């Protein structure tokens, strides 16, 4: 008999999201709905304001993906103003953005997503000596690896468990059969969960060196950057590089080996494509390597239907947003320049469930050429791989080989998680080169950080970049020197979108269909797949039984 299960809120994400799914009698998900349950109306608030203020305002979309909206908004203005930032400013933006990628991905894997793969309670029964041996299988000198340290971590965890007050670890799904790691592997990754708290602070400091603070840095302006004093001080560059080394070491000796370690036990899920989803992948391209954006670290393009042999060049005009199933008025598929944001909330049905056939989310449904598309690390690695980008191809092949998996294993929840780790290494290894490029440019006598500009009487522009969570675009229209219309299409809107006019599911929804849930009281598999996208909105998950309409109550462990 099929069941309806309610999980709300989905935790370890940013924001407020609700997902409902139907499961059949074999506990396999047959259908799913993704609903964002909060609207803040920032696009409406932007109208009538000075375009130069939009960057700092839109940065407040999100404090987890801090910086990225700031950059996208400033880029949209620069496009509308018809100017380009000087070389130094371009590089400094990459340095801030690069720091954001590395620490944010680390934090996502360990603090937001890792515990969908790792059973902390099981780590208590691990043999620390054996844990050392397991860690050394994936790295010659694993991060903070010794039997004494692992034993100390166990002791700390045990105190927590014995106190009966588990805090953030309370009431979770420990012992669920979908956890597949042996106790020693759980212990190794758990120990890095604790180390990663410190490491992500280091990354945040890197951002603050040129950004003024983290989260929400404050050193970008339309036309360039303001941190000219920091740029001209050798000591600042040294402080940045010193911290970069720490982060690189963590990526090399903890993050990558831990993902390989986990992959070796969850291999079957990758091979079975659990959580693959829509298999259309979209990137806007990110990290400008020259002043015109012709050469980018992440190539732009679209891969359709998981076809790795072909990359479709991105045509920006084919990006639209629909609101057929979203709590807004309108029925057309509109390009973001024409986009409207007029709320029309119709609520839940009488049983407090989403009206799946009608409007059911505050998220719009972005589509490319009418297709739902996944964005994010997996999309970047797949588009890069299919484009034949040598750096991306080498890293992807090398990592998958080490895990004993074919490239097609990328089309899965596990693949999404692995792709994030791979690109973390890719970015971390690029940053030092950018620093040297900056130093070289300053040495050559170029100390410019700003291109003089003023707000045009009217105009329009777009800023397209790659946030850690995926393709991010801001579209601005200016009239009488103020913002006339502003639309942002963010990664989690692409991934967490509801159905469109044609009834096509969004990527979260599609990725959940076909997944088997081991224990209906514990929606672990749903969380694992949803978290693999690194969602950035607050949410809730429902599992629906169309026949019995029974809401299954969760039991305390």
């Amino acid at each position: 008999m099929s069941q309806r299960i309610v999980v709300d809120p989905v935790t370890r994400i940013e924001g407020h999201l609700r997902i409902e799914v139907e499961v059949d009698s074999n506990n396999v998900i047959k259908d799913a709905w993704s609903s964002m349950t909060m609207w803040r109306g920032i696009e409406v608030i932007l109208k009538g304001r000075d375009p130069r203020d939009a960057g700092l305002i839109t940065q407040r979309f999100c404090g987890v993906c801090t910086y990225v909206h700031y950059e996208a908004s400033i880029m949209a203005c620069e496009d509308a103003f018809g100017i380009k930032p000087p070389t130094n400013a371009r590089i400094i933006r990459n340095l801030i953005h690069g720091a954001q990628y590395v620490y944010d991905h680390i934090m996502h894997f360990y603090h937001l997503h890792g515990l969908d793969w790792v059973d902390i309670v099981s780590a208590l029964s691990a043999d620390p000596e054996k844990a050392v041996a397991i860690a050394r299988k994936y790295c010659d000198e694993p991060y903070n690896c010794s039997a004494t340290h692992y034993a100390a971590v166990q002791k700390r965890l045990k105190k927590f468990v014995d106190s009966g007050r588990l805090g953030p670890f309370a009431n979770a799904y420990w012992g669920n059969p979908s956890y597949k790691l042996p106790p020693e592997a759980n212990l190794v990754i758990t120990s890095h969960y604790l180390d990663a708290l410190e490491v992500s602070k280091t990354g945040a400091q890197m951002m603050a060196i040129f950004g003024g603070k983290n989260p929400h840095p404050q050193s970008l302006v339309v036309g360039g950057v303001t941190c000219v004093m920091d740029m001209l001080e050798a000591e600042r560059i040294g402080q940045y590089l010193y911290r970069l080394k720490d982060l690189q070491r963590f990526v090399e000796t903890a993050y990558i080996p831990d993902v390989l370690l986990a992959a070796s036990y969850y291999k079957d899920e990758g091979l079975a494509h659990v959580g693959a989803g829509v298999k259309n992948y979209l990137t806007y391209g990110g990290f400008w390597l020259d002043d015109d954006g012709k050469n980018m670290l992440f190539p732009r393009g679209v891969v359709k239907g998981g076809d790795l042999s072909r990359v479709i060049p991105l045509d920006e005009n084919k990006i639209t947003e629909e609101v057929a199933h979203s709590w807004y008025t309108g029925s057309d598929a509109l390009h973001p320049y024409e986009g409207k944001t007029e709320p029309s909330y119709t609520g839940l049905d009488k049983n407090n469930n989403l009206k799946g056939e009608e409007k059911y989310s505050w998220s719009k449904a972005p589509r490319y050429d009418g297709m739902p598309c996944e964005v994010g690390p997996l999309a970047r690695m797949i588009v890069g791989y299919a484009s034949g980008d040598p750096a991306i191809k080498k890293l992807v092949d090398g990592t998958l080989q080490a895990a004993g998996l074919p490239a097609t294993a990328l089309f899965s929840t596990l693949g999404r998680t692995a792709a994030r780790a791979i690109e973390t290494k890719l970015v971390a290894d690029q940053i030092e080169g950018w620093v040297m490029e900056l130093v070289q440019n300053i040495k050559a006598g170029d100390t410019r950080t700003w291109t003089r500009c003023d707000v045009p009487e009217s105009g329009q522009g777009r800023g397209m970049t790659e946030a850690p969570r995926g393709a991010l675009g801001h579209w601005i229209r200016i009239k009488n020197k103020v913002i006339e219309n502003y639309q942002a299409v963010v990664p989690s809107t692409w991934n967490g979108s509801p159905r469109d006019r044609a009834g096509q599911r969004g990527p979260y929804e599609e990725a959940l269909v076909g997944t088997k849930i081991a224990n209906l009281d514990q929606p672990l598999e749903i969380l694992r797949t949803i978290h693999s996208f690194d969602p950035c909105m607050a949410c809730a998950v429902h599992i629906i039984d169309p026949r019995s309409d029974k809401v299954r109550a969760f039991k305390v462990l």
Partner: protein
Amino acid sequence: MAKNKKSTGCSAVEQQYRDLMRRCKANLEHADRELPPARENFKETLAARGLSRRDFLKWTSLTTTALLLPPMFRPMVAKAAENFSRLPVVWLHFAECTGCSEALLRASYPNVDSILLETISLEYHETLMVCAGHQAEQCLEKAMHDFAGKFICVIEGALPTGLNGRYLTLGPKAKTGLEMAREVTAKAAATICIGSCSSFGNVQAAKPNPTDALGISDALGIKTVNIAGCPPNPANFVGTLLHFLLFGALPPLDALGRPLWAYGKRIHDFCERRPHYDAGEYVEEWGDEAAKKGWCLYKVGCKGPYTFANCSKVRYNDGISWPVMAGHGCIGCTEPAFWDSMAPLEKPVAEKTVLGEHTLDKIALGLVGVTAAGIAAHAIASAVKGQKPDYSDKK
């Protein structure tokens, strides 16, 4: 105070501090009895993280003075720090961006503040907790039941009040943020608003405020402590909780609910670029020669003169920088309605009419009047709800 004779002005202050000490001791004894036991031994944790007793002593001295307390309170601050992980905290998220939670996770290190935040007893926090859905709801209910009247409710995010609150729904029963906030704050010992969203509404409340978002105090009609900032400095949150642990009461506040010890002074007053302001040396446009020399950012829109906060003293991310150091200037994020009153952000406020025709100094003076006299304020005000210890000065 008023009862004291004029000639004993000095001893009046001493008397005040003695009273304060009595309260503090009574509260610490009360806390020892009432709070759940510590999950971790704080001293062991410090040692494990390589912090010596000397480091800790140094930190307690700094914190004691930062909280505007005399040196005799240093041992009490140490005791409060040891109790930190015993104080149950329920953390709610409403209309916000999670930047404040992120800021706390990034508290500077190696530093006692960051260790305190790592050992904080979070009974409910959606961004960090492992369980979801019903299990998460159970955690919240359990905390509200087990620690009724004892836990601190920390709120991140504003409350949309439009659509009868339905711009934000949460949990299996799809309650509105408003409903949830009412239920939880009613059971809390005190409510701390972290960040400008819960304090004053912030970005979602900027004009035209399409969701009618309000800060918690305005939305619920309750008294809150407002750790303003977008995001605020983690040190201000730690200090406020320590104050609660010391006195069973939240610290003295300014008229806007901000703790005086952290928000009593203007950014401008401790700004490293202040001498350039006084000398009339200004950055005229981004990246100019003046910018390279670190001159004053007033003319490119710095709102430091109108903004009350300790950013210029504490800085961010292990003190590595802050916006003015990065050459941008302050945007006034600890002040109510700053997106409107401080806009456009790259122009001085004086050019605008929002604050009337006043000159810079007049505005500054007017604002200072609101929050002056921080040092003597300790015995006067405290925002307490459901406080149990007896603080009356039994003679």
